[in-house]
């Protein structure tokens, strides 16, 4: 297992965090822009034009720039109904299988988004009000999908955070200390 201090994990961490912060900046910009639009509409009788277009683009950016960070933190919603019944060995296999599935899905997605961007550019598809061309956004979300796929690959051989597993470890530690009462007699 690659440790969290290795150069590869550290640089991935930096990339996903930068991407997440960018998503946060887009969110703040959206918040201010929309409020300014409402204020302009009611107080100055002058709404900003094309806020709907910009809102749609910001959702696009926020979505795909945030996936890799969430994947890196291991913060996805998971259900462990059957998983819990296996021992540590099979569990590791199941986790690896889930990562492979995610990597393939988002890897193929990134590839197809890049392919699609060519068609989109040839047909000059663009937003309705501001006629901003769509194709560069295909590249951005392809980047987001690829970064997420890379994080899933990295999970296979590096020790990355996993929120639900880490919570369980904390719980076990507490019980070992005797500082917490056991859960349902388990």
């Amino acid at each position, binding site marked *: 297992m690659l440790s969290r201090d290795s150069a590869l994990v550290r640089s991935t961490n930096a990339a996903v965090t930068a991407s997440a912060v960018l998503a946060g900046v887009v*969110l703040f910009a959206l918040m201010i822009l929309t409020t300014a639009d409402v204020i302009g509409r009611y107080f100055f009788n002058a709404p900003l034009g094309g806020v709907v277009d910009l809102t749609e683009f910001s959702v696009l950016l*926020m979505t795909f720039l945030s996936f890799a960070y969430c994947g890196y933190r291991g913060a996805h919603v998971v259900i462990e109904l059957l998983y819990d019944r296996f021992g540590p060995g099979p569990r590791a296999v199941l986790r690896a299988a889930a990562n492979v599935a995610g990597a393939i899905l988002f890897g193929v997605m990134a590839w197809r988004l890049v392919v699609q961007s060519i068609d989109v550019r040839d047909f000059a598809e663009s937003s309705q009000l501001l006629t901003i061309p769509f194709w560069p956004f295909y590249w951005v979300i392809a980047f987001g999908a690829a970064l997420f796929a890379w994080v899933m690959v990295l999970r296979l051989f590096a020790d990355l955070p996993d929120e639900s597993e880490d919570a369980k470890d904390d719980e076990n530690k507490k019980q070992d200390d005797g500082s917490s009462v056991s859960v349902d007699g388990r």
Partner: protein
Amino acid sequence: MAVGQLALAGLFLMIFLRVPIGIALGVAGALGYWSLSGLDPTLALLGSVPFETALNYDLSIIALFVLMGNFAMVSGMSRDLYDMARSLVGHWPGGLASATIVGCAGFAAVSGSSLASAVTMGRVALPEMKRYNYDPKLATGCVAAGGTLGILIPPSTGFIIYALLTEESIGQLFLAGVLPGLLLTGLFMITIFIMAWRDPSIGPKASRMPWSERLRTVWRSTSLLAIVAIVLGGIYFGLFTPVEAASIGSLLTFLLTVFRGKLTRETLSFCVLETVKTFAFVYLIVIGAFLFNPFLAVTQIPLKLADIVTHLDMAPLAILLMVVFTYIVLGTFLEGIAMLVLTIPIVFPLIKSLGYDPIWFGALLVVVLEMSLISPPLGLNVFVVKGIADGVPMGDIFKGIVPFWGAMLVCAALLIMFPEIATFLPDTMMN
């Protein structure tokens, strides 16, 4: 049809084996579509659906309201809300538990998440109830149950997801949650009152506050209450869209955080990263759902199911009760948003064909989802409360929840008997 059932079975198997739900939906959808429509259309789907799904105006609401809830959390508003509720009802039997419920309801009006409501209010209320020797079962039960109000009282992630999947109006759905949310708040308080009245030792009365103190605590909460009034009032009177309401609400909450001197490097970075992480996993599930739904449409499973059930020759009410019962059972082992995404495409055509109001059904569904948040064995709110209530065993928390679970059942029954509770506000809202 056989491929459809196989893919559905595979989807559930993957989910129960801990594949993240969004990924499981995407994989099952892509493989299913591949086997029914061929490889090229599937690849085209993967190249277009992510863009088309995420280029969505209404989807921005989730990120904005998550941000608003996180700012509300760091601004110290939960403390103010709890102090207000405590000074007003703390001297009743079980008053501190009732105050927790009121605090949760108030926090739910700035937060769309049940987990956030339970954590935020639990951190404030649990130590106080411990100090007054409250029965731990009552103390943890009321935090877990009160927290669920987060997805019923708008803003609510549950309603937003429901709206995205059914193309219903988010504004109407938000308003449909207001009165049922207040009703459930009242039912929770009645439940506590009855329990503490039968056995006063579980919830000793706290000291009565003088009116000067009450006015002071109410005054401290006015900024928060004003934000709630602007957000919901703006939607009700048609002054702005839910997206605009969410932007204004989160900006005001942000300014309040700054104004109170609670904005530091740490809290800002916590708010931004926590917000990004939360909306990322919701958006991933949404993208997965929109990769799965084209496949589901090709199989025609939803249409066929609606067709079979409507020809069953059963009263619509009987079918509705069956649906609600199924959701309660599913809710014991599925997470709320996942449950919506997995079932709405199948259940919604059925409900519509029975002639039920889609907005009303949304409200009913969210009440049932709330029950799932506190049902054993996988009630997420219970795990959250366990994390902040040091040393209270899981079994006790689940025991403490039973009366509140009953109150939710009563709320669902009242909603079925009197649909106006949900439909009155959306029907009278101005466009």
